């Protein structure tokens, strides 16, 4: 099977009904759709990074420096909405899930190829509507990405359109989830038992369930904002008997599980990459697989820990705090299993591995500070401060973001059939890692000292921290530019990638790079687990 002869046509050479760009945007091939997602997401990612840089620049000194307070409000809303709904949530499942899920389970495509294409269309329509909201009505919302009532109902900015955009993107995410679950249930190759599935597939499976069970709640909540704005029904308006707190409940019933939509597939990728670079089978396969499901289940029951200071009964706070601590258990299981996998492995330190190691370091900091906020007494102190901002970025950017880059470097040779420059990629990773900590670590300190989040101005005593943080943002952006420069350069000038550059044992490495249109000439029959490497097999 391990042939790399040029005779095999890759999916890039597929002759379909359409040509040019239409052969992409109307393609139902899962690999093309995956790349469509990748391209559109990276585009929006670059916008959101730019906004982030602008915000940091504004905060380089007290008082207004480059933008007004109103613009700053719109900026952090836009940064949040784009990063969360257009980058991190679809981050791993949409591009890598689409591209690799069918290959990893030995199928030719997703179960519902046309639905898959529809998901991308909904995604891109939502994204374009969100951009339209920038320039129409009263300008982009200044509510923050959480769209809390009553402000989101009263503000004159274009909340309705932006909220509708998020609604569409949510719908796209739900359809992807349905597709993923059905594909995993129905299209596994002969012999691919549940216990032989790669762990990324397990991550996607758990994610799919959260997408299906949580996203509709967001959909109805967002719809209620629109209805409220147009008809004034009063469901969240205290003057008419409504309760704004219920909005927060409904919102977090989705949005807390949503952070697991962001992190579970990332954890799956980590479990793919670590065994390959340790040349050793994964430690505790079953525990990792089931901890994904446990996180999905427990994560659905902790939403109100975002609301400790909003006004709830003591009992509710106590229960949600306890449940929050419980989520740490399956996350901890994963971390320990990854570390145990490295023990006595013959580790190759390539770029994807470096990103994953950075992930474990940063995510541990993010996770442990998350536990601090799960404790009510501390949360009351740090709620709505930069401590939260720091924690969130450590988990999302340091967690899901770094894994996204790791996955990009891991699968880049397979997706594009080209190798990148290893040295440059490692350098970019190092710069990113340093920049990341310079950017976000001061925020923990600032938050602990009482710097509130979402303020465009601050007291002089916070100056040093903000200044260091802004310098960090420049380092991060240098790393990002170097990384993407390296990747884009290798698209054109890179060496041709072999079919299995890292020595991986999962199915995607058994076919040519880039993969042929139908992935497999013949559907493979699976006789072993996903992480059985040759040396071990012969021992």
């Amino acid at each position, binding site marked *: 099977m391990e042939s790399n002869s040029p005779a095999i046509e890759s999916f890039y050479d597929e002759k379909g009904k359409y040509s040019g760009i239409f052969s992409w945007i109307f393609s139902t091939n899962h690999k093309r759709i995956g790349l469509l997602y990748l391209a559109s997401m990276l585009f929006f990612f670059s916008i959101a990074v730019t906004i982030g840089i602008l915000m940091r620049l504004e905060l380089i000194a007290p008082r207004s420096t480059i933008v007004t307070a109103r613009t700053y409000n719109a900026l952090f809303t836009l940064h949040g909405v784009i990063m969360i709904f257009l980058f991190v949530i679809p981050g791993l499942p949409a591009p890598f899930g689409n591209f690799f899920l069918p290959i990893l389970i*030995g*199928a*030719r*495509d997703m*179960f*519902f190829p046309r*639905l898959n294409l529809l998901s991308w269309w909904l995604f891109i329509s939502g994204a374009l509507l969100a951009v339209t909201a920038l320039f129409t009505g009263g300008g982009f919302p200044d509510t923050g990405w959480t769209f809390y009532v009553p402000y989101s109902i009263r503000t004159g900015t274009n909340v309705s359109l932006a909220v509708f955009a998020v609604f569409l993107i949510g719908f796209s995410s*739900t359809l992807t*989830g*349905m*597709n993923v*679950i*059905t594909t995993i*249930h*129905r*299209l*596994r*190759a*002969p*012999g*691919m*038992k549940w216990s032989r599935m790669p762990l990324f597939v397990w991550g996607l499976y758990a994610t799919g369930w959260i997408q*299906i*069970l*949580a*996203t*509709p*709640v967001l*959909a*109805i*909540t967002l719809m*209620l904002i629109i*209805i409220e704005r147009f*008809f*004034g*029904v*009063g*469901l969240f308006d205290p003057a*008419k*008997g*409504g*309760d704004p707190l*219920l909005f927060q*409940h*409904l919102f977090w*019933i989705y949005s807390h599980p949503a952070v697991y939509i962001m992190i579970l597939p990332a954890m799956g990728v980590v479990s793919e990459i670590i065994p390959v670079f340790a040349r050793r089978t994964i430690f505790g396969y079953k525990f990792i697989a089931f901890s994904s499901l446990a996180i999905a289940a427990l994560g659905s029951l902790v939403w109100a820990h975002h609301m400790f200071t909003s006004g709830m009964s003591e009992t509710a706070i106590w229960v949600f705090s306890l449940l929050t601590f419980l989520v740490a258990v399956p996350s901890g299981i994963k971390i320990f299993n990854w570390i145990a996998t490295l023990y006595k492995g013959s580790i190759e330190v390539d770029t994807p591995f470096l990103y994953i190691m950075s992930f474990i370091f940063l995510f541990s900091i993010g996770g442990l500070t998350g536990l601090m906020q799960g404790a009510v007494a501390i949360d009351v102190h740090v709620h709505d401060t930069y401590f939260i901002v720091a924690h969130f970025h450590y988990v999302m950017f340091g967690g899901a973001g770094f894994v996204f880059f790791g996955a990009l470097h891991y699968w880049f040779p397979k997706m594009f059939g080209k190798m990148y420059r290893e040295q440059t990629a490692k350098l970019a990773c190092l710069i990113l890692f340093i920049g990341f900590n310079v950017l976000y670590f001061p925020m923990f300190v600032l938050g602990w000292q009482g710097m509130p989040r979402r303020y465009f101005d601050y007291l002089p005593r916070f100056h040093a921290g903000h200044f260091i943080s802004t310098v960090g943002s420049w380092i991060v952006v240098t790393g990002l530019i170097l990384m993407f420069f390296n990747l884009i350069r290798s698209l054109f000038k890179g060496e041709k990638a072999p079919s299995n550059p890292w020595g991986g044992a999962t199915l995607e490495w058994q076919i040519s790079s880039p993969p042929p249109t139908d992935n497999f000439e013949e*559907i493979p029959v699976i006789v072993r687990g996903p992480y059985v490497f040759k040396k071990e097999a012969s021992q």
Partner: protein
Amino acid sequence: MNQEKTNAEEHRDDTGAKIGMWLFLFTEILLFGGMFLLYSVYRSKNPLDFHQAAFELSTVAGTINTLILITSSLTMALSISAIQKGDKKLSKAFLIMTIIFGLLFLVIKYFEWGAKFQHGIYPNSPELLDREQGEILFFSLYFIMTGLHGLHVLIGIFLLSFMLFFMVRETIGQNDFIKLENSGLYWHLVDIVWIFLFPLFYLVT
């Protein structure tokens, strides 16, 4: 579950299509679930106002609509049974009946809403804002939940009309009726949601 049937492009996989549909129905239940959550909280806070406001809904219209929808679920199921047995004509007839029942439901709903509007009861109306807070909430929930449900009935009617079109075009037949079956599942869901809405709004008096 079943490792032998794997090639979607070679064998049609009806079980897979049905799994997908059920997953979609879960999302629908959760969509309405958000509304039911709001309903239960507001009702437990304002039991008397809800009780009072419910008197103004027409129980007769609600009951007729309930009967119509339940009957339409029956004709839907009969339509599928008919096509399984190979009787396309009968299947089409039952499908058309289902669509007509759906339309009838919407017409009655239209008159119900129209009557409320005439009495000055609609979201944010001066008449409504004069009332107790619980009553405002009751009618807001009534309009949103029955409206959302009505929208689903409308989508269902479109869906079934497409199925009728497919039957005429012969793409649905005795050996390939999964589309019809899935549309039927959707129709039953719409029906079941109404079965919960009816007592919660009309019978709480």
